[in-house]
């Protein structure tokens, strides 16, 4: 019988150091994963803690009053909430058909695969352009270009409250358009991925009973991909609500409420970017309150998105 010493597998008995490393590594990764929870909790604590004063002073009236006046120290966030919801929802209305249409176009065989690949790549590049650069472009190129159209809208339809003011340059309408540019890549990319995940056998089934391309898209392929597309749409709604730089640069940062999309306005994110640096006293607290509202809005949209994906998933 050989002695234990001569066993060539010295590590047969796990050394203590190995056990410690193994255990320690596990604790380390648990700690790192916990950072997510700590961060979320910290963000909530800082924002909620900062807004307590304002919540105490205004309560829910903060949501529905539109006066925002640092001089008289009175604050209500209705203008910014209206701007946030209006710009994000209207931009969604424009971006969804464009994005889903593009996604269909680059997943179907209308044009050669190389061209489809090129368009897909360009959409992804569009997502890589920073918000602040799009803002710069919006100020100096896009807004002057679309102003004649906006003036025409005002001249012809001024009886509609949404078009009731003279465009003066920066405003909600150009902000909506730049938001469209920002969320288009998200909607397109997610819709494309969802469409690509529809199994080939469903497409074959539709073609097999004699469906045309668009009959199979609208009746079979889109319904099968709708859960992913809806999730992507809601995700981009969350993005649009929280989008800051490009909107701040082009929306005009006006605290005066106006229904018209041609007038300057504000969003919560733009207001934060614009005023937080110079604010003091109770204005900081009111800005924190507005930030809390923005957080809750985006949180709701994100949770709703996850629920929607589950709800709409078809079995196939």
């Amino acid at each position: 019988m050989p002695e234990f010493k001569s066993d060539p597998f010295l590590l047969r008995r796990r050394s203590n150091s190995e056990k410690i490393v193994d255990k320690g590594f596990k604790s380390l990764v648990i700690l790192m994963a916990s950072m997510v929870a700590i961060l979320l909790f910290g963000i909530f604590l800082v924002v909620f803690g900062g807004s307590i004063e304002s919540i105490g002073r205004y309560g829910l009236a903060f949501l529905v009053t539109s006066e925002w006046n640092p001089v008289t120290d009175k604050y209500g966030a209705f203008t910014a909430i209206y701007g946030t919801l209006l710009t994000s929802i209207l931009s969604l209305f424009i971006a969804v058909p464009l994005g889903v249409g593009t996604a269909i176009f680059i997943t179907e065989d209308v044009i050669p695969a190389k061209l489809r690949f090129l368009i897909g790549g360009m959409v992804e590049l569009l997502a890589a352009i920073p918000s602040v650069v799009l803002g710069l472009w919006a100020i100096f190129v896009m807004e002057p270009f679309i102003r004649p159209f906006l003036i025409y809208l005002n001249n012809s339809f001024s009886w509609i409250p949404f078009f009731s003011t003279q465009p003066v340059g920066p405003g909600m309408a150009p902000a909506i358009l730049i938001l469209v540019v920002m969320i288009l890549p998200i909607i397109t990319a997610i819709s494309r991925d969802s469409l690509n995940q529809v199994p080939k056998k469903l497409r074959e089934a539709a073609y097999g009973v004699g469906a045309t391309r668009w009959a199979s898209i609208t009746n079979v392929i889109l319904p099968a991909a709708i859960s992913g597309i809806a999730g992507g749409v809601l995700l981009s709604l969350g993005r649009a609500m929280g989008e800051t730089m490009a909107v701040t640069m082009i929306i005009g940062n006006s605290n005066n409420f106006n229904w018209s999309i041609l007038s300057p306005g504000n969003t919560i994110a733009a207001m934060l970017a614009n005023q937080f640096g110079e604010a003091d006293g109770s204005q900081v607290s009111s800005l924190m309150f507005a930030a809390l509202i923005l957080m809750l809005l985006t949180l709701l949209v994100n949770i709703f998105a996850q629920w929607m994906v589950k709800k709409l998933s078809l079995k196939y």
Partner: protein
Amino acid sequence: MEAVKNVFLEIPSGKVTALIGPSGCGKSTVLRAINRMNDLIDSCSLKGRVLFNGNDLYGINIDPVEVRRRIGMVFQQPNPFPKSIYENIAFGARINGYKGDMDFLVETSLKQAAVWDECKDKLKESGYSLSGGQQQRLCIARTIATKPEVILMDEPCSALDPISTLKIEETIHELKREFTIVIVTHNMQQALRVSDKTAFFNAEPQKGGSGKVGYLVEFNNTEKIFNSPSQKATQDYVSGRFG
């Protein structure tokens, strides 16, 4: 890359024709060429002609959608639409311009495909609530409902258990009174059971290439193919010596 070559076949109307051969010999490719399903594959092209009632299906003016309405298809994997059983039948009929009583069509189609008894109480449920064999018969019913002239079947039983297979074969016997059927199978017993005529395909390594290219070896009455084939390769295959 070439998948299959040298195929000259005259498929008789009103009969069941089986395409058999080892895997990779291009049976499915030939089948899918008949109703232009290969159009869905980007890199696929065809040299030669496919004639249907005297029309070249690959002629310049031919509408592939029209072709598929006349030549229906049942696929290897059951592929119901993610819709209700009722809608699975109604969808195809509707886009084919059916104007009659939809309930009646759904019922007769499901009955013809021998799946009515399993479905009649759950027409509103998803097609995917059925078992694999029932799904495949639903797909057959869906194809029948569009009233094609020819039904192509691409190994319709390969994903199914023996009992479901038997039921589908019975259905095929029923259907051949009304439709021309072309069936691809790698189960020789099945070919023998259901078909009137059989085409045997084989594959050979491509010259200078890495893949295999398929070709038609022999086409004759099923009885002849299985009992006294004229080619040795056919004899070897049907007697189970390879493949």
